[in-house]
């Protein structure tokens, strides 16, 4: 378990992080969500030790992080970059060795990963000769080549083509399935919603919400229901305990407790045929708006 405790950081007199604390559980994909400038990148840099915190600690399995712990982390910075003139496989091997892999293991890892990401044919090309999409895959390979024990990825999906998004999602899930704590930030709430187990929502340098996706849903949004009738559904607005969100002839979208929703369904069946009834999961975008707004 990777944990942050009361991390505070200021640049000059501007406070960027204020008592930030959350956990990244092993075997789980944790999404880190927040607007631009909310403090995501600063938090990740502090986890990696690239930046120091003014106060607070980062621990792994309860013990404060050491430099040698961090060398087993895989990190993808928001600002991408590799050596443009260095050959791809050589560069990955070099990075793996800096992380402490032996020469043979480093080379084998690099080759295997390039194969996995569909870059095997490009192994001996300098990075600057790769297409933009392939450079992004190379960047992901750079974060994974030493088979990290913890993964921290800053906006890993930004700028990826849809195929690469698929590949990266699969790879991240694989790592999580192996018991590696995975933390990644993203603007693309739909992706986060699709693949994350846990969520951390940050705004203005403070963690506004953190927990499992299901728990956040339960906590931050009234359950919503959709009702579809062949005739006008206007009557449900008069039902006690119902807040209508949207009404359009036979279609009604409303907020209500599960008991009230069941009562509404019974009432609808009593009036005639029911074409559709379903509970609606609030989207992450809704939760985000509610938490941050």
């Amino acid at each position: 378990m990777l944990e942050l405790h009361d991390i505070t950081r200021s640049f000059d007199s501007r406070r960027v992080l204020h008592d930030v604390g959350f956990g990244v559980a092993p075997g789980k994909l944790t999404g880190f969500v927040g607007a631009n400038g909310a403090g995501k990148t600063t938090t990740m840099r502090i986890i990696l030790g690239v930046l120091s915190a003014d106060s607070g600690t980062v621990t792994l399995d309860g013990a404060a992080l050491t430099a040698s712990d961090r060398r087993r982390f895989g990190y993808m910075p928001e600002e991408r970059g590799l050596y443009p003139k260095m050959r791809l496989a050589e560069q990955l091997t070099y990075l793996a060795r800096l992380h402490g892999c032996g020469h043979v293991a480093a080379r084998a890892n690099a080759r295997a990963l390039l194969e996995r990401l569909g870059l095997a044919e490009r192994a001996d090309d300098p990075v600057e000769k790769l297409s933009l999409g392939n450079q992004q895959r190379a960047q992901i390979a750079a974060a994974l080549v030493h088979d990290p024990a913890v993964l921290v990825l800053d906006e890993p999906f930004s700028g990826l083509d849809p195929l690469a998004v698929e590949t990266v999602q699969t790879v991240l899930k694989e790592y999580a399935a192996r018991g590696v704590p995975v933390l990644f930030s993203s603007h693309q709430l739909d992706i986060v919603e699709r693949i994350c187990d846990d969520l951390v929502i940050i705004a203005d340098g403070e963690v506004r919400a953190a927990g499992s996706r299901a728990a956040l849903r339960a906590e931050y949004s009234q359950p919503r229901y959709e009702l579809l009738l062949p005739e006008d559904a206007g009557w449900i607005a008069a039902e006690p305990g119902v807040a209508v969100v949207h009404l359009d002839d036979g279609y009604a979208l409303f907020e209500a407790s599960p008991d009230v929703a069941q009562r509404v369904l019974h009432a609808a069946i009593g009036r005639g045929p029911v074409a559709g009834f379903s509970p609606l999961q609030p989207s992450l975008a809704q939760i985000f708006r509610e938490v941050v707004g």
Partner: protein
Amino acid sequence: MSGASGGAAPRDAVWLVAQREMVSRLRSKAFLISTGILLLAVLASVLVGGLLSTGSTPPTVAVVGSAATVVGHADGLKAVPAPDSDAAERMVRSGKVDAAVIPDDSTPAHVAVIGRSGVPNSVVEQLSISPKVTLLEPSKQPALLTYLVALGFGLVFFMSAMTFGQTIAQSVVEEKQTRVVEILLSTISARTLMAGKVLGNSLLAFAQIAAITALTTGALLATGQKVLLTNLGPSVIWFAVFFVVGFVMIAALYAATAALVSRQEDVGSATAPVMMLVLLPYILVISFNNNATVLGIMSYVPFSAMVGMPMRLFTGAAQWWEPLLSLLILLLTAAAVIVIGASIYGNSLLRTGARVRFTEALRG
């Protein structure tokens, strides 16, 4: 895949960084070509120096009749007898001899000299009477040679420090500009990264100096300049020792100043002060290689000692303990410079965009 177990020890990481620096340098055509040119220039200067100093074979002169006695008294002339003045003149024209000496009773020396196109000074000198000269403070080395040696030390240090200093500066900014530095810093410390860069480039510089020294020694031996080699030997060794320490210090300065900027275009202006530090001893040693006071000061100032002290050793002006004292001063300065340089470097690496102010970089 097999994973990292605890990470590379800092010492291994320094060596990995150094290796990468060296490999990328050795693969660069520009580097190989400039090294080739430098080696050729060194070789050429030794050969030219050899030609100049071996141009002192005694001139041959054609002698006619009683002139033979006069020429016979001069050690530095090789006499070739000629039957008469006309024959002697023909020999001069054909280039068989450098000059002719014929009897001429109208002159106080009782001989006349016939040359071809220019006055044969070496012959005239041999036939003239010179006053006795006493030198109060004889210099141990001839002035021209002193100048050439000064030029040699100055140029070699200047060229290596410039080339490899600029290379380090560019490689620091390359990492900043391409942002790869953030990945590196998440793995190894800024100190390790800088140490690796300085080590890698220093080793290449030392290899280049070793090649130059080997080439110079070989060429001196091949052209029969053993005497010069014996005179030069100790100062070259001291030069090498001072160079190693001085170069590492300069390299650290280049790394630190380059880290202040984020674009290759700004490297020149950021590292300009360091370049002045490298250029100054070169200019001074060329202009003042026969000025004992300037050389004396230069041989103790850490940024010029690597040129100044070997020069004073060569001219015999330095006592035996002087290079040791100067080396100690250089070592202490280098250590301080490296500590300050490393902190500037570490504080500036992640600040991209505008140039980092020097005071900010120091404070962190």
